[in-house]
């Protein structure tokens, strides 16, 4: 792999006033042209990582380790001004919550215009045409009407597509998409994923795709990182991890996928138990209280990351190379 666009090394993140870190010792890299899928437990730190990549954590958060974009440390060397410029130019995000992502008092058309900053010196008509074309691409009905509307007048899926359009108009080097298709119906989703796959070809950089939907991972991602309770438990190519999961959490998660269950059932599989509270973490493996394969050692000692091949690893005592 050439120099990675994004490289996280041992990143831990603690929110102000939180009793413990929400993300612990996470490391991964995303190369040029690559799409990394991040999956994992609700509350496991996916959006926290996304916020860190954007330099958008709440004031007073504590970050250790290093998070590099094109070799520059986002937390070490950059001023607030550098970060803002980076967000405006090189890194774009599609936020998890489409209802609060946009400015509620500004018309959609104006908001979108702000995103196409590379084109600011072009004539108004040309910029408008570019926005209209993008709105059509994301399959919005009545694009000209939409430009004149405010966010509260739009449905969840329409807002989500406006956010996707905004991110694509920005032509970023790093695109962070946090569950960008949850509010879309199956046919629209298929079309949007097609557009994103195309954009991947033309974008100059890398994509991080956070999702709970394994079929989306299969369709769009090259590599995958599995998070559990703030820790990276497994990583590898999509084929490796989905086809041959090694960590017990990954295995359990995949078994819960209703899409993989043939006969309709009213009793869906789940992983028993709940995630330990932030201030009540087990001393050994974080997954031990819920792990069906746990052995005595798991309670006493936290497992290290075991390398299973180039850029393939899992953090579990039972995993051996």
């Amino acid at each position, binding site marked *: 792999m050439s120099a990675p666009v994004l490289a996280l090394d041992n990143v831990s993140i603690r929110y102000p006033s*939180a009793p413990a870190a929400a993300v612990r010792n996470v490391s991964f890299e995303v190369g040029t042209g690559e799409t990394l899928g991040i*999956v*994992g*437990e*609700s*509350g*496991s730190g*996916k*959006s926290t990582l996304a916020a860190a990549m954007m330099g958008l954590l709440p004031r007073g958060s504590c970050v250790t380790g290093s998070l590099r974009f094109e070799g520059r440390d986002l937390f070490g060397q950059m001023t607030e001004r550098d970060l803002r410029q980076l967000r405006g130019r090189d890194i774009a995000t599609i936020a*998890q*919550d489409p*209802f*609060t992502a946009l400015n509620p008092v500004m018309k959609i058309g104006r908001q979108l215009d702000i995103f196409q900053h590379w084109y600011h010196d072009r004539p108004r008509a040309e910029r408008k045409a570019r926005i209209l074309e993008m709105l059509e691409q994301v*399959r*919005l*009905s*009545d694009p000209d*009407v939409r430009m*004149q509307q405010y966010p509260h007048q739009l*449905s*969840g*899926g*329409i807002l*989500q*597509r406006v956010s996707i359009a905004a991110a694509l108009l920005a032509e970023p080097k790093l695109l962070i998409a*946090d*569950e960008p298709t*949850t*509010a*879309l*119906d*199956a*046919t*629209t*989703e*298929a*079309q949007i994923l*097609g557009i994103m796959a195309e954009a991947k070809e033309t974008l100059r950089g890398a994509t991080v795709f956070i999702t*709970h939907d*394994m*079929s989306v991972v299969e*369709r769009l991602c090259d590599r995958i990182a599995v998070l559990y309770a703030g820790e990276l438990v497994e990583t590898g190519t999509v084929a490796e991890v989905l086809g041959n999961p090694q960590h017990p959490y990954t295995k*359990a*998660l*995949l078994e*819960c*996928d*209703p*899409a993989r*269950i043939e006969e*309709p*059932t*009213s*009793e*869906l*599989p*789940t992983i028993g138990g*709940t995630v330990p*509270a932030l*201030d009540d973490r087990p001393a050994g493996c974080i997954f031990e209280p819920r792990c069906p394969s746990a052995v005595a050692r798991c309670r006493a000692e936290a497992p290290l990351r075991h390398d299973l091949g180039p850029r393939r690893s899992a953090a579990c005592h039972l995993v051996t190379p």
Partner: protein
Amino acid sequence: MTQPILEARNLRVRYPSGTLTDRLLGRGPRHVTVLPDVSLSVEAGQTLGLIGESGSGKTTLGRAAIGLAPISGGSIRVGDATATSEDAPEWAGIRRRTSMMFQDAVASLDPRMTLGTSVTEPLAIAGGFDGNRRDKAAELLGLVGLSPDFADRYPHQISGGQARRVTVARALALEPDLVIADEPTAGLDLSVQGELLNLLGELQNRLGVSFLFITHNLSVARHVTNRIAIMYLGRIVEEAPTRTIFSAPEHPYTRALIGAREATGGGGLIEGDVPSLTRRPEGCEFRTRCPLATDLCAAKAPALREIAPGHTASCHYAGQPAGVSHS
């Protein structure tokens, strides 16, 4: 059979369109009709899935069912109460037995209230609750897999999936008869999603709760709904038992939806322009994208009709043996 718990009859909902200035100056149409004429019912103790294209009007229908959308025609009946406008006096009674899980989970939580206060708020409003509010909050949060310490947090201090779960807990506080669940599992991991769906199923078995279940997730709908209604451009285009929708869909739009999920890479896509709410196509409203459209489809709008017992569809060619439709 007993009468359905929720019934929408010839429901019509329209929003003012454009900006106020546009309206005052008489520019463009004054209204956009989102639901032209919807009839739909949820049987007591059952789950009706509502599925459809993004922007087709599902949330509007769900909100209208508790009086939160501008109703300009038709009626909503819940139990014995029938309302025919947004400001009907019947809504207060309807809302006492109906809960809404809003699609915009984060926005539906008051940012200044702790989550403990939020989830027990319906009890306080309804009155008559004399237990310990803290204990009740912990119990409700526990139902959705959140530890008691969440009761002291604020909405901006939790993850998207955690916010979704808080709104589910809040909707269950009053043990409602009817729940309008708008994308209740969006943003949840597969295990939490399973837990939540099992919880809803258990409530249904134990208390006979009925659900109008709005979702984009076909794999979820396949497991938890009894019947499914498919919406396109604000109209129900097909309705049938869940098994039938998946095994023998009759409307071309339903077929495309089911196909999109099963196909990987490009299959099941609908070609053609996305139709406009303000300039609805004449004849069949799906014809601009329908692979089977004929001259008849442009000339005449198909009616929603029964093509088999309990199975309705609005397509001129629904219910005909394959092949005939291409004539």
